[in-house]
């Protein structure tokens, strides 16, 4: 059994009270519950407050560029299918700068767990609107309010038949840990969009705001995640009430399964077949 202590206690640069602390706690709990040791996992992130997460627990870490966590995670997973790869970044990183990668990742379905710390704001750059900011929210950069319609990652993922789509809340750590554990067990792409209060900059979507709205699927309401029509309806519920839990699942084969070479272990440990290479060269004679 893996103990959460193996993941260490690290000092962070997050503001006291930030939702990221709870997300880290839930993640470590899910990793331990999944019996994964630090060296068996790889956390890939972009840039932002959320993207610092990999530095705050003991793990393999590739902290890349703003918006690019999914491509880097995809490459790492395809190079070593023995690694449990988790991409962990903010809403700006995943849905804004990385928007095209998000859409491509949903289609590609590589076995990566994507944790989107969705605080509906740009934290690290001190409070500008993000793709998920609600219409009308005021910031220094949007003094007359946000005029763009908010991006709905969960609806987009469900509409594209992603194999595992869930919504969690940083204020419900146990519940979130359960969602992350299920996401880790899913063999294709899994998305967990996590409602995360930003106490410093998002004065609209506060702990209180979320708490008044969220309700748990399966506990406070019946839902069959295999039911796509129901999932689509739930994914648009983001107002008076916001469902959290597993929204949609299916068993579409993972991208990884189309490369039989991945079954032979990490690419780094596979020998180069010079007999085959000679045949390749001969084919040009």
């Amino acid at each position, binding site marked *: 059994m893996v103990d959460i202590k193996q993941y260490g206690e690290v000092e962070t640069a997050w503001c006291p009270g930030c939702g990221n602390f709870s997300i880290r706690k839930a993640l470590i709990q899910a990793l331990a519950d999944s019996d994964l040791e*630090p*060296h*068996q996992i*790889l956390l*890939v992130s972009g*840039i932002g407050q959320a993207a*610092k997460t*990999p*530095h705050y627990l*003991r*793990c*393999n*870490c*590739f*902290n*890349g*560029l703003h918006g*690019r966590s*999914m*491509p*880097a*995670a*995809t*490459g*790492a*997973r*395809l*190079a*070593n299918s*023995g*690694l449990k790869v988790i991409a962990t970044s903010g809403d700006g990183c995943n849905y804004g700068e990385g928007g*095209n*990668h998000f*859409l*491509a990742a949903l289609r*590609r379905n590589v076995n990566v767990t994507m944790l989107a710390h969705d605080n509906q704001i740009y934290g690290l750059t001190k409070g500008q609107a993000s793709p998920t900011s609600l219409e009308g929210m005021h910031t220094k950069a949007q003094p007359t309010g946000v005029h763009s319609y908010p991006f709905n990652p969960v609806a987009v993922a469900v509409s594209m038949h992603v194999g595992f789509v869930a919504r969690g809340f940083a204020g419900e750590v146990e519940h979130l840990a359960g969602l992350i554990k299920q996401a880790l067990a899913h063999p294709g792409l899994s998305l967990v969009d996590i409602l995360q209060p930003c106490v410093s900059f998002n004065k609209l979507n506060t702990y209180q705001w979320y708490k008044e709205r969220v309700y748990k699927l399966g506990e406070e309401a019946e839902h069959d995640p295999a039911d796509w029509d129901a999932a689509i309806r739930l994914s648009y519920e983001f107002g008076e009430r916001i469902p959290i839990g597993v929204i949609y699942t299916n068993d579409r084969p993972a991208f990884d399964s189309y*490369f039989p*070479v*991945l079954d*032979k272990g*990490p*690419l*780094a*440990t*596979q*020998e*180069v*077949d*010079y007999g*085959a*290479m*000679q*045949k*390749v*060269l*001969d084919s*040009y*004679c």
Partner: protein
Amino acid sequence: MSHDSMNLMIGGEAGQGLVTVGQVLAKALVKSGYHILVTQDYMSRVRGGHNTFTIRFSSQKLDSPCEGVDLLVALNQQTLDLHAGELNPDSAVVAETGFTCGQAPCLNVPYEELADKRYLNTVALGVAASLLGLERELVAQTLEAAIGKKKGDKVVEENNQALEKAFAWAQGQTHTLKPPAPAQAGEKRMMLGGNQAIALGALAAGLKFLAFYPMTPSTAIALTVISHAEQMGVVYEQAEDEIAAINMALGASYAGAPAMVCTSGGGYALMTEGVSLAGMTETPLVIAVAMRPGPATGLPTRTEQGDLLFALHGGHGEFPRAILAPGSVKQCFAAGYQALHLAEKYQTPVFILTDQFLADSLRALEPLDLSGLSPVRPGGGGAEGEDYRRYEITEGGVSPRRLPGLGPELVVADSDEHDQEGHITEDLELRVRMQDKRMAKMKGLVADTQAPEFSGPEDADTLLVSWGSSQGPVAEAARRLAEEGQSVATCHFGQVWPLAPAQFAQRFKKAGQVVVIEGNATGQFAGLLKKEAGIAAQRFIGRYDGLNLTPEYILRQLAS
């Protein structure tokens, strides 16, 4: 005809099958014992327009394409209108009945009488092959292999019949074409283009991951890797954009797969943040850039050497890199192989810089030799367990690189400035030490720099300097000048960064005048020579009309 070689040009619209005719003729020439050098000139469209496929062939080794046409195969009237003026004495023209070619003698082929319209290009192929004295059976076999279908298949049979009729018709014609005699008929040789050779070189070094986004003229590098991926155990992906491609490759390389991306200028522009990431995270990566004329979309299918300084400076911040610039198809193979090894050895981005001319240039090659080659072996070394540090400060700047998931060590890579463990730091004194550590790799890279290749007398009156694909045209221009009795030497740089002046500066001083010849408007390499080695060339000859350098172009410029 010049220098006992012959220039065969096939011209027509995109979609008429002229590349198939060209490739089959080129392959049949190679199989018949000739050396070949192909240049492809095409417009950025899938149908229509005007394209040419030119094969220079000879019994001797060829370095360069040349101007002038000995056999012009015109699939449309426009080809004759545009290229009749380039015909050499004693040349021949193959065209459809009704096409006109001014004063030049024209063999008007009654295509409709010989075969169904669908096989027009096969008839053209047969007539041309017959005029060149190629064996019909050999051409038929080559065509069959190109079609990719078995004997007995209806398409193969009908092609064969068209070919037979074309040969028979051509044998009854009179012409003055005198193809050079093949030198070593029957000897096994390969036919390869620059893009294919880069891919094969990379595979020979153990390439395991490739990501790309299609962009002419680089795409064939990816397509070649993909066509052998299953045999060679390579994982590949066509990414959503070049930014994704390079970040995927970096993720894969971090996790231990020797990785490459390929692109052209515009795609490389998108990749530059990733190049910088490779520099900061010290992740090995090969970036193959096949240049085309810019700025912006420029001339998508034409050639230029305009991105040298961009390859050198692309990516924010300062970090070490190497840039290989192969001059021939054979050197493309070597560059593909060497780039992967260099990238791993110095844990930094390494470039292969080619251009459309070399990328698409098919050539005959002695079979490539795999003996003595070894694969890149990523990872290993350093302290064990808890003591392992990804960015340990070492004398040569290269830190022990472990791979995530292959041992108990945790591998922490970061795009922020980081400490030796890999974690974010804002300790400014440590920042200086980390930057010094990374830049320390330059010393090793300089020591490993491939020396430029000289030929000709040490104290020549004129030293012609080239880099990358201009090697061949410059070599042939120098040969022609030497034949006229002039004192000329050449120097070719197959690696353009870093430069090691100790390897060449003395020799440059002994030469009379130094002339730098490159395919761009501003003399980028000439500038680099001045900055890095204090060598001020007396002259610069540039070409930037989208076409490749030729010996004739160089000689005209030198004379003016």
